[in-house]
């Protein structure tokens, strides 16, 4: 990966990640989040994780973000300009995250972290190599994931559906 590509993607992802937390309108936050995810997906592909990069675009930037957008529009929150936390909260949030990033960076600068680059096989990052791992070493985890997704579907439907006889208080006159 060329240096300029990394710098370009890092700047985009950092600026849009900041956009997620400083925008007041939830739709703008969501669009900034999509930009962050797309920049990270390009970074994944540049790091030879081709399949995971495309899955990131399809699953994250596609499915999950559309789910968020759907909920924002369903709840009619797109014009919301409510308070975004008190001044003390902002102060402590800034201090806490600055301390966290300083600690992590100081850890990264220690010499013991210098991992040697060992090179990679020709099939690294391809769909075949990923499936090979998924269906041999991680088979039980893969099957457990399918059960998790089934439970999530049932749980989401059970949570979001209206109980029989219950009326939405905002639309009381509607059937």
């Amino acid at each position: 990966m060329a240096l300029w590509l990394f710098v370009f993607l890092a700047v985009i992802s950092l600026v849009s990640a900041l956009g997620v937390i400083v925008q007041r309108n939830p739709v703008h936050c969501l669009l900034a989040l999509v930009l962050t995810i797309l920049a990270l997906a390009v970074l994944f592909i540049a790091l030879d994780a081709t399949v995971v990069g495309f899955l990131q675009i399809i699953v994250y930037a596609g499915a999950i973000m559309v789910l968020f957008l759907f909920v924002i529009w369903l709840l009619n929150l797109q014009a919301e300009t409510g308070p975004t936390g008190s001044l003390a909260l902002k102060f402590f949030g800034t201090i806490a995250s600055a301390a966290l990033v300083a600690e992590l960076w100081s850890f990264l600068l220690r010499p013991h972290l210098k991992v040697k680059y060992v090179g990679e096989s020709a099939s690294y990052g391809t769909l075949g190599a990923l499936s090979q791992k998924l269906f041999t070493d991680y088979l039980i985890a893969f099957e457990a994931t399918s059960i998790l997704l089934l439970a999530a579907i049932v749980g989401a439907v059970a949570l979001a559906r209206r109980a029989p006889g219950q009326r939405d208080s905002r639309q009381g006159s509607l059937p």
Partner: protein
Amino acid sequence: MSSIPLTWLLGLSAAIFAIGVAGMIMRRNILVMFMSIELMLNAVNLAFIALAHRLGSMDGQVIVFFVMTVAAAEAAVGLGIIISIFRNRETVQADDLTLLRW
């Protein structure tokens, strides 16, 4: 393909994670707090991918695959909870949801 130092990639990951933490602390809108969680998950994914690339191992990519799956399940259930809360309480501000506060 190894011209980018591992430290820079992990540093970018740490910075995005810290931004997610800051959003989680500062924002009071549940939806935006949820987006901050997604931001943190993506930062961790970047660390996994960078280390997997450096070690030449596919295991990190498999873990990222599982993280994405769990994030999808989490988003479905979490947004269901948000819809349910909004239907009952007419708000998505975390400061208004103090029923369990002592």
